[in-house]
């Protein structure tokens, strides 16, 4: 099976990665944050040219952010999730724009919604939220209900709500 072959190949080249087959056409590769760039370059060279998305998962109970690079290889027809973790306080990571150019938009997105800074990213600015005045909203400790009460107010029929 192509998935197992692929896992074997990756583990042969990089002894430090954790790789396993999740299900048909889904492979998971875990790697530490220092080693990810070289693994990424290698994966790109063996056909994982399409970066589907970069997901960020907030896990405050472990004090980490998990970054998941969703890769797809058109030749092998395998979806590979490249996972790494970064610490939660003052999160910082390197950009992957030179490996997959479309990491540009996803990294800007993650910066906006999780507050992870990507070194080397040319354009980290607020793209979707304008004039945001709180902690990044997709973090688990962002209390959206309290924010809504503060920003939009609570419905109070006693007040001068009805006009005429």
């Amino acid at each position: 099976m192509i998935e197992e072959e692929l896992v074997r190949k990756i583990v042969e080249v990089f002894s430090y990665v954790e790789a396993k087959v999740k299900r048909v056409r889904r492979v998971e590769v875990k790697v530490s944050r220092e080693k990810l760039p070289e693994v990424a370059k290698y994966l790109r060279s063996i056909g994982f040219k399409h970066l589907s998305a970069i997901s960020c998962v907030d896990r405050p109970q472990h004090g980490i952010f998990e970054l998941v690079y969703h890769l797809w290889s058109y030749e092998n027809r395998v979806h590979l999730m490249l996972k790494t973790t970064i610490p939660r306080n003052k999160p910082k990571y390197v950009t992957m724009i030179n490996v997959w150019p479309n990491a540009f938009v996803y990294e800007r997105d993650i910066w906006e919604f999780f507050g992870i800074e990507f070194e080397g990213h040319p354009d980290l600015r607020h793209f979707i939220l304008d004039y945001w005045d709180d902690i990044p909203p997709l973090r688990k400790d962002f209390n959206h209900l309290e924010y809504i009460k503060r920003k939009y107010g609570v419905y109070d029929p006693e007040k001068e709500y009805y006009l005429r």
Partner: protein
Amino acid sequence: MSIQEMRRIGGEGSRETFELIIGPVHMETENFSIIVTVEGDTVVEAKVNAGFLHRAFEKLAENRTYIQNVPLLLRVCVPDPDHAETAYSMAVEQLLDIEIPDRAKYIRTIVLEMARISAHLFWTFGMSAAVGLYTVGQWSVADRERFIELFEELTGARIYHIYNFPGGVRYDIPMGWTDKLMKVVNHMEKRLKEYDKVFFENDILITRSRGLAKISTEEAISLGVTGPNLRATGVPYDFRKLDPYAAYPYIDFEIPTGKYGDAYDRIMVRRREIEISLNIIKQAIKELPSGPIMAPIPHPLYYNVPPGDAYARVESSKGEFGFYVVSDGSDRPWRVHIRGPSFIHGVQLLEKLLKNVRIADIPVVLKSLDNCPPDIDR
């Protein structure tokens, strides 16, 4: 405020440039804005200004149960909601590790292809308005209405169907529905020829979009472009074949491709996809098996999903639509990440392709990419 003053913005040295803000109050952009810097009649730089439609789906999904998320998350892409709900359902199915019954697979295929056709017909409206030919747009929306009616009969709703569910589909096909569908399919096949005559083979359309906003296969793949925009560059990459789901592995269909990767190829790939979708519907109706429509799923109120993560994707009318769902074992997802096709097409690719085109071509490029603003903002 005069033209001279306008030209002074950003005019370094001898270059006289001015800014045009296209959208959100504009016929073509929907709720989405592009700020283009124009020199003479040529666009020097385009900057996308999105976020007018941000509803924070990814935050909302964390606070709703798995079942409640189905009616929420399908609202991501408004013209084509069925693909979103199917992708989410498939991700949950992967987490629960269940296989849906054969009949549900076929019904899903039929529904998804109907959704693709109606999304493409809706796109035809926008595309034809972008070049100033309103007739075909009016026709195509009226023809889309026939599919919407069938959807209404099948699912009970016009736009947001909430039909493809984790585990299968919600209702079985009503009596006589397939005959009506066949009638509409035959009608649509005839109408497509009329569209061809008026619009798709129109000389002016060809002169306007041939060679416009070209992109090569290599570039497209490295930018993450998917769907008809990628196929227009000449490669038959379609997730219905590559990462098959529903009943697509059992159905025989070809994948239309373009040749040059320009705007006209993108238009024609979409137009041929309508035809192929009609064929898929015909085949699926013919081979429709009998049996249950829903796999056994946990109790809807105690829908605890085992911990883990799953990524499911479908080939929507616009490209790869994926959901990454992380579960921590409770009844609510820990994280849902939405991978919409327009997030690439409508931002990075659009900014790239809009460089050095004429002002008049901006809506043509925009519509030929078929981006969907709510999907960019999520």
